[in-house]
């Protein structure tokens, strides 16, 4: 099939970007969206034009590197699917597709479709961990964990840190990402000692990074390729309230 793509081209963080129109012929329905961009890039190189820069690595939907806004939807709007797992069979011959980078104050564009998501790493550094130094661990089966809690913790832990939730949110809030980490660790017995300071510090960092506030719109969860549920934001809010009341102290 033949496709027209309108791609955001931006030389670097300092220059202004613009949409450029390209035609791609010979698109096979079995191609992934990124493979379609590969084909386009090969065409550009052959004509002596610079290839379109985009982040990607695993191409299996797990590393969280890829992510672009396709026709207004983060990752293209197909349920539970990252950009790299989106296939061209969900488009038809003659379609015109617009491709843009994540748009958020906290994710500045580096080049073309590549953005800087370092803010997410800084949120994790603020407290998204359990302080278990190497060598200090007791036997793994010494603390049974109810299967239900372990499964729920896992659901939250599936977040790939792609940033689609931020891109999809009209407020560019990072609440779903932060809630996923707070819930993952807060649901496990090992995560209890630091539970209160964790949520306080991570939320404070989220604000410092310039992410917007959460007004419960829910676009984040709809766009999330790992289907991280909104109920985790409820958990974060409950933890936050509890922690604020005790000033972060774990002794109530």
């Amino acid at each position, binding site marked *: 099939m033949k496709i027209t793509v309108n791609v955001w081209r931006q*030389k*670097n963080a300092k220059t202004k970007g613009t949409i450029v129109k390209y035609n791609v012929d010979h698109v*096979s*329905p*079995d191609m*992934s969206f*990124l493979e379609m961009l*590969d*084909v386009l890039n*090969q065409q550009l*190189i*052959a004509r002596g034009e*610079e*290839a379109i*820069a985009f982040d990607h*690595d*695993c*191409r*299996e*939907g*797990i*590393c*969280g*590197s890829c992510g672009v806004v396709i026709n207004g939807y983060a990752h293209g709007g197909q349920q539970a*699917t990252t950009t790299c797992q989106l*296939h061209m*069979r969900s488009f038809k011959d003659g379609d015109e597709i617009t491709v843009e980078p994540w748009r958020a104050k906290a994710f500045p564009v*580096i080049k073309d479709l*590549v953005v*800087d*998501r*370092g803010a997410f*790493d800084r949120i*994790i*550094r*603020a407290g*998204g*961990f*359990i*302080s*278990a130094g*190497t*060598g*200090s*661990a*007791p*036997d*793994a*089966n010494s603390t*049974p964990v109810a*299967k239900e809690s*372990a*499964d729920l913790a*896992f659901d939250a*832990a*599936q977040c790939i840190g792609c940033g689609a939730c931020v891109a999809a949110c009209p407020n560019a809030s990072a609440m779903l990402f932060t809630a996923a980490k707070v819930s993952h*660790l807060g649901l*496990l017995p*090992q*995560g209890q000692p630091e539970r209160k300071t964790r949520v306080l510090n991570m939320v404070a960092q989220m604000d410092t990074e310039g992410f917007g506030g959460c007004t419960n719109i829910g676009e984040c969860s709809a766009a999330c390729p790992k289907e991280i549920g909104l109920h985790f934001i409820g958990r974060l809010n409950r933890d936050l309230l509890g922690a604020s009341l005790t000033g972060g102290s774990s002794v109530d």
Partner: protein
Amino acid sequence: MTIETKPQVDSRSSVTYTDARLNANIPAGPIEQKWSKHKFEMKLVNPANRRKYTIIVVGTGLAGGAAAATLGEMGYNVQAFCYQDSARRAHSIAAQGGINAAKNYRNDGDSVYRLFYDTIKGGDFRAREANVYRLAELSVNIIDQCVAQGVPFAREYSGYLDNRSFGGAQVARTFYARGQTGQQLLIGAYQSLSRQVAAGTVKLNERTEMLDVIVIDGRARGIITRDMVTGKIESHVADAVILATGGYSNVFYLSTNAKGCNVTAAWRAHKRGAFFANPCYTQIHPTCIPVSGDHQSKLTLMSESLRNDGRVWVPKQAGDNRAPEQIPEDERDYYLERRYPSYGNLAPRDISSRAAKQVCDEGRGVGPGGLGVYLDFSDAIKRLGENAIRARYGNLFDMYERITGENPYKSPMRIYPAVHYTMGGLWVDYNLMSTIPGLFVGGEANFSDHGANRLGASALMQGLADGYFVLPSTIGNYLATGGYDKVDQSHPAVQEALNEVTQRTQKLLDINGTRSVDSFHRELGNIMWEYCGMSRTKEGLTHALKLIPELREQFWNDVRVLGSGNELNQELEKAGRVADFIELGELMCRDALERAESCGGHFREESQTPDGEALRNDDEYCYVSAWEHMGDPSQAVLHKENLEFENVKLATRSYK
């Protein structure tokens, strides 16, 4: 450049060396006591002095991430690097199936010794006993550590940890987190790393690619990097350098590895004096989604755990084009169950892959081009119900459907082998130190523990054993032993390495030829898959050794890299990696040619039994091949480390 390589003759060790530089430094004593004894005998760095030592860790996957976090906790000054935009995205994240550990929580007869034995046998008796024993020993600590960090492993209703079986083992010792074990383990390591970044002991440099090692007075003293956003080429000096930069499967262009996986760090170290061991040992994974067209950019693995419940088959008749549902039971050949009754569908990877190739070569393959076999869940669905299968493999089934557009609950999956893992890598001794003193190598980047074939769920185990437990001990010993001077950026060797990298980068940009980097990479991949893939012959390898140097010549005359070096330039990044892959490809073919036996993933058609099984030749090839760079891959010199088996008897590996 000369490298000081004083032969170190170690009287404690029982191993004999063909080459004195390949002293494996294996501690003396019974295998069960070697590691504890060694830990006691190693020198320590006083906690108060640790911050005075700078350690560079390249790579933030399981091996590098775990090492950097642990060294940071210990108080060293750590500089960590990765090419992705976040440490959490290292390729380890993609591992699906699980991680082995000899916990014996199942009470099914597992033990450290059994895991050790299975790994040695799985590796077709081409790994070092002492290293493998230590790995099995440390496996139990890894699970403890990960649970303490909050890794949400699968649990039973009792609240205790669950296990599953993997290929090449008859016990259930694999711990898993749905189909995303690598992700969860890596996030655990990344969280610990993040904690150290916050504590100020680790400085993390993302989107930074290492392009050379700095060697001063024969020791590794730093690295040269390129900032992938600004293009700035910089030097970093240190007391020791760890490479944990992963495997080189992408030399085949199509593999299950992430697109960015590369050999550059290891290859540059090789060119600076680190021997490259067993480059031809590659693992072809039996269960991957078949190629769908020329646009294919990578291959997707379907976890081996699927073989717990899926049955592999092809039609008995060549050319049978009926839909799978229409082929009656007695016209199907469940060839793994037929040929390997005791392991059946869980036969090890090398064996299963070769068997798939054989049936496809006989014209019995299924799907477009006849390059596929069925992996059928209908029996398991009948027996356990669709929901049970969904709970076990739901995400894998979804992934399959997203990629192929076919529903595996309704019709069998089609699978075909694909390159997946490289057992070869930089040669290291028992301390994980390469032939360049001060240059340590961990994870998939070293050659150490898997011999000629790696068992499923053992790479994650090895990466974390190296990172959390081995490297943090052995590096301390190296630093405490001392014997080298402080150096800084002004040292002539630093400047020389900086200049070399700058010139090479500029050269790639200046060629301004007609062919894209990808076109060269694909061509190299085709050569490697054809002649150095699932089965290899003297004739084919000799031919490849003619083609690859020609390709290299063309690359350096005709590659087209647009844009500049002072900005994010993904074509430039790829060009540097492909240039290194071309050189590595040549060395792999030389290694495969030299090893005229079949062992593990390395199958030489000239060396097989009458029924088509691999035929090992212990009299002539029971050694590790370690190649020394001599200016060009065609000139590389082979050194041999003889392997001696004191605990396990060399036996024909049989899974019948």
